[in-house]
């Protein structure tokens, strides 16, 4: 089947999709967006978290056909999404992207080895600064979930953070530095940094 949907503000068309394929598979294997991770493919680990019409979901549990005509934001589009939200633009990513913007988005990651120079969302920067990234496999899902929580709740308590991120497993960090990162992102956000 063919599936038409919007990913990170760009209209996408996936052809020859088998009916059993998940949104995660289509993103990773058909659209060249492997940022959403395949750690369990059973909805337990949260590594594949994306936003579907603004709502965080495990993309491994969403059948590809279910996203027809809908808006998806992945970790690859998180920086742009956060930027548009901060600028008071379309927070759902529904505005679409002009061709020029789409080209510039593709060209990101200016240093192919380190990605230095890439524009990051506050929560992405905070994860790096706080040491919340080790192997990094859980990171994309955590970033999407944390960004969504900070959108709803700009001044979360520790208990709020833990509750919001309880669907995202991390095996490396013991979560302490993830807590630090989200607190840091919240603090920077409230200071307008």
């Amino acid at each position, binding site marked *: 089947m063919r599936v038409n949907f919007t990913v990170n503000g760009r209209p996408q068309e996936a052809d020859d999709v*088998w009916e059993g*394929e998940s949104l995660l598979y289509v993103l*990773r*294997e058909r659209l*060249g*967006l*492997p*940022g*959403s*991770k*395949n*750690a*369990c*493919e*059973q909805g*337990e*680990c949260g*590594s594949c978290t994306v936003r579907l019409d603004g709502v965080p979901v495990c993309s491994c549990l969403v059948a590809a056909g279910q996203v027809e005509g809908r808006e998806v934001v*992945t*970790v*690859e589009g*998180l*920086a742009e999404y956060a930027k548009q939200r901060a600028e008071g633009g379309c927070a759902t990513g529904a505005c679409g992207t002009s061709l020029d913007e789409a080209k510039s988005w593709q060209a*990101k*990651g200016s240093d192919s*080895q*380190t*990605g230095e120079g*890439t524009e*990051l969302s506050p929560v*992405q*920067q905070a*994860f*790096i*600064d706080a*040491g919340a*990234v*080790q*192997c*990094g*496999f859980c*990171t*994309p899902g955590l*970033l999407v979930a944390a960004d969504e929580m900070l959108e709803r709740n700009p001044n979360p308590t520790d*208990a709020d*953070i*833990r*509750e919001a*991120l*309880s669907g*995202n*497993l*991390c*095996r*490396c*960090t*013991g*979560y*302490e*530095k993830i807590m630090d990162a989200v607190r840091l992102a919240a603090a920077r956000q409230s200071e307008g940094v």
Partner: protein
Amino acid sequence: MPANGAPTKITQGYRTKGGIGESTLRPDGTLKVTGEFAYSSDMWHEDMLWGQILRSTVAHAEIVSIDTSEALAMPGVYAVMTYDDLPTEVKNYGLEIQDTPVLAHGKVRHHGEPVAIVAADHPETARRAAAKIKVDYKELPVITDEASATAPDAILVHENRDDHHAGHVPHPNIVHRQPIVRGNVEEARKRADVIVEGEYTFGMQDQAFLGPESGLAVPEEDGGVHLYIATQWLHSDLRQIAPVLGLPEEKVRMTLAGVGGAFGGREDLSMQIHACLLALRTGKPVKIVYNRFESFFGHVHRHPAKLYYEHGATRDGKLTHMKCRIVLDGGAYASASPAVVGNASSLSVGPYVIDDVDIEAIALYTNNPPCGAMRGFGAVQACFAYEAQMDKLAKKLGMDPVEFRQLNAMEQGTIMPTGQPVDSPAPVAELLRRVKAMPLPPERQWESSEGADVRQLPGGLSNTTHGEGVVRGIGYAVGIKNVGFSEGFDDYSTAKVRMEVVGGEPVATVHTAMAEVGQGGVTVHAQIARTELGVTQVTIHPADTQVGSAGSTSASRQTYVTGGAVKNACELVREKVLEIGRRKFGSYHPAWATAELLLEGGKVVTDGGEVLGDLADVLEGEVVEVEEEWRHRPTEAFDLRTGQGNGHVQYSFAAHRAVVEVDTELGLVKVIELACAQDVGKALNPLSVVGQIQGGTTQGLGVAVMEEIIVDPKTAKVRNPSFTDYLIPTILDTPTIPVDVLELADEHAPYGLRGIGEAPTLSSTPAVLAAIRNATGLELNRTPVRPEHLTGTA
């Protein structure tokens, strides 16, 4: 940034930014937060096929027949391979003992053993084709524990063993046995005023790294293959892969793809050979990615263990003797079992002074899932048991458990049961003092003006208690872990370091085969290069087999050994750079010939701080490159009868204090805080050091209260291969983990550093158990503790 041009006059204290001791940020951080970092499961190639493995549905059986015809006939299927299709006479592999079949031959020995492999144009096609392969099994009785393994009529898991342990083990179903005898236990026992005995059970833990086993094998024009893979040791994989493929090692190129965690679970091969076989058979690139279900079958686990301990002590609290027997279940294939036995045995006494010991550790061959390396490697199981014993002794003596431990704590100069002296700081008593001195979290944190905040209580949002039946407990534990490969292993690393001018600026490139699995080795390599070579910009070359082996990312060894190799190569590069400088500019300043020279801040400076020139000028038109192996001091094998020998390189120590709250009615545990104090020798990157300690602590928490692979004792089949049924700690299960880092240099190690990754995984588990015992008064001789163990309904 240092610019080209005349030397700047700087007199002293010029330090290169981003060197060792600073919390520099990960070089791969940006790629990892943007989703651009390419993990092994993200690899993609035009025209790529997907591989799938068919695994045994039973634990122990003869294979009567395999029929692949229906699978082969499916549209989209390019190849189906079984044992009969293996190209050479080498059909087994293994880390130490080559006992693991690439594909099962005539027999399967554990649930989930690979039997056949399929390549197809879509992963679902490959899965369906694998399901169409008909395997006729004739089931055999299963060996599941020591009694069944060593029974007089026991079926041998491996017949006709000819490995180098076969000659000294008491039974062919025992992989390896390591006794250690020192002093005289019978005599020492007479001095004991109290004796405690205990029998302990440690459950089977899974590494549960999040990035699944995966990789991409690309056939090359010269008949070879290029494998992009997530592993812990490229060269160890290469050594095992090439002979099975019938290729010389030069024709098997290996590049490290992004690794989503490891924790020991990637020491053994998983899909490496299978992907290469299918790629060479089909002439197309083949990608294999396990799902989580398969991952539980696709790597070895931590050895479950039974541990029998006896300790004695005098009335004034001095340990008299220790006798123990540790039985590790190695499962169907040897993997790292022999080395795990060596660790369990040699570290079974813990960080304590006991002169009279009688120790035995064995690993069994059974039909349970194969077990091998996991963070802590044999020391974890022992720590759980000896720390329970320490608490029992303290209680019997009426002493404070921390004071009792401190009274018996080892220190620098202590002789290990193996006869090896501890020749660097061993601040065991001090670490205990430090965790005990940390402020305790306030009581009844759940109480607020609006009633109970259930999120702070055992059971959480399940709303199972508002504080009724909840009791607090506090527990302590301390452990000892060896660092680096032991028992005479030639544990070297190779580093290639290059220095040149790029765009007018001196740049260092560090190339090693070290597997970055998340630990931050790449960060540390760049820091070492900055410190040693005085540059700001360091390029870390991707890890591959185009450079010599870096050894395994295991045994807390990489910062020590590959870090040591990078340091050593940088020092050799520095000498060459200074030679060039002397040649080019020596006539301008006498200090070139007479002073001790350093590279700092992009300049050549004297040890007195005087600047002699710009590195960019010295290196103009030059490329300096050194590739060199580096070794830590050698170790010795343990004597097979007495266990004596200088077997270890270095030790690592951590202590924990756990605070738990237990809902005694429902048996639910909430760990409130898990404080840790650890000696790290020298923190090359303090941020990463604390991250390692917190991560290791959390894995110890997991096996204390939730993590266990359940194997049916009747069928030896795995009952919970999923994240639905095998639970690892979430952010709700994990408490705050305050960390106190001590830095007492080990003069034998680069920068005085100590390997740190594993020690926190040891003491975390027994500290939590001690706290639960403290809260409930229960004996609790097994881990993990489940609700039924706390409510008397087990």
